């Protein structure tokens, strides 16, 4: 079963929000949708889920038009974040409502998970802490047993422990039910251990699709340069991850012998190769500009 998004365009108040967005989601995939705040991630989700109607384009599931075919709607679960109707109900009430909309709703699993995480079954979701709300969102999404689950910033603002629990839940569910998950995030690195590929939303459309591939020629170095200014070839051939004074941590996505010779030259007082982390490979899979955002984001935190 494949969900096909074909040429979706959407204007809101005469402004282009989405322009010719096309991609496909296959069974059992976890796909990241990455874009800056305001790039249209939520609008895209709303449009696919049928909460907004596209001005142009088509959403196909099983060869049928998803928006027009009501019986397919139980195959997709998505609620707007952070404001949504769930906030005003308790888990017990939500279950009763969703059982009507999702005939395969997994009541047993839902109840067990609510209990396991110590969530209060009779309190409204709005009274929950941020972490509990995040866990609840994951539980309710997968309990629907919809084939497609869309999650909007599921890791945003969570502490490390909750973040791990959320990731664990997603992975377990996808492994045991072959659910297809689309995760929107403004944070690339958050998605590293989760996603099979990443869709980059930019200028109102899918700018690029990345599969995270390990390139043998990635090298990471920490070095100190001797001159007044950073040797220009560094910026041209690598991505600078950190810099304090003359000490630079840099990743070369395509390390060559010629580079190695330059690094051994007199420009540097100190040079050490660092082990490559998954994050480095992940970052290297993205365009330079994607890295620039990341730094902007980190700078504004």
């Amino acid at each position: 079963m494949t969900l096909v998004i074909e040429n979706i365009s959407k204007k809101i108040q005469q402004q282009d929000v989405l322009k010719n967005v096309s991609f496909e989601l296959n069974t059992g995939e976890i796909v990241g949708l990455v874009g800056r705040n305001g790039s249209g991630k939520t609008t895209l989700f709303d449009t696919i889920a049928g909460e907004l109607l596209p001005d142009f384009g088509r959403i196909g599931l099983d060869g049928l038009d998803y928006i027009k075919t009501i019986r397919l709607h139980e195959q997709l679960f998505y609620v707007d974040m952070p404001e949504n109707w769930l906030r005003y109900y308790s888990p017990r009430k939500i279950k009763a409502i969703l059982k009507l909309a999702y005939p395969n709703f997994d009541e047993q699993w839902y109840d067990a998970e609510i209990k396991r995480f110590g969530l209060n079954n009779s309190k409204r979701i709005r009274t929950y802490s941020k972490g509990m709300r995040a866990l609840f969102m994951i539980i309710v999404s997968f309990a629907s047993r919809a084939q497609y689950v869309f999650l909007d910033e599921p890791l945003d603002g969570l502490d490390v422990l909750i973040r791990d629990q959320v990731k664990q839940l997603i992975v377990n569910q996808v492994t045991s039910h072959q659910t297809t998950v689309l995760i929107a995030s403004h944070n690339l690195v958050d998605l590293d251990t989760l996603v099979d590929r990443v869709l980059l939303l930019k200028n109102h459309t899918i700018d690029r699709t990345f599969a995270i591939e390990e390139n043998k020629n990635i090298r990471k170095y920490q070095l100190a340069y001797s001159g007044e200014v950073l040797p220009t070839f560094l910026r041209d051939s690598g991505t600078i991850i950190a810099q304090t004074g003359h000490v630079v941590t840099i990743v070369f996505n395509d390390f060559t012998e010629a580079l190695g010779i330059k690094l051994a030259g007199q420009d540097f007082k100190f040079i050490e190769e660092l082990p490559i982390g998954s994050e480095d490979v992940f970052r290297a899979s993205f365009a330079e500009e994607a890295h620039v955002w990341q730094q902007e984001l980190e700078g504004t935190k």
Partner: protein
Amino acid sequence: MVQIQRSQPLYEQLMWRIKSQVASGVLNIGDKLPSVREMALIEGLNPNTVAKAYKALEQQQVIATVAGKGTFIRGNDGFVTDERLLASIRQQLAEAVIDAKRAAISRAQLHQWLDASYGEDRGEERHGHDLSH
């Protein structure tokens, strides 16, 4: 446990970790490995990296994937059929010997080290790996 110094690709590092766990008896024949996604989370790697490692381990017959059941540590059939693996082991040994000669390390000393790395553990339980076959 010996640590690998060379900067290896991440998937090779994972392969090596799994192999060394098999060699040291932490993992036994028939043990189930975490799924690709679970392993990605545990090791802090991207699922594609783990998939690549699993695929290579499968080719080297260290693990086997049973559809719908999972990935398991494979029994050793007595001899390894992966010629490339054999060639690479021989190559590495040859390199080590050259370095050892330069450093004037005796043959006996090398043998002793080899025996030590092979481990007293279950050395004799394993069917003799005749590398010169």
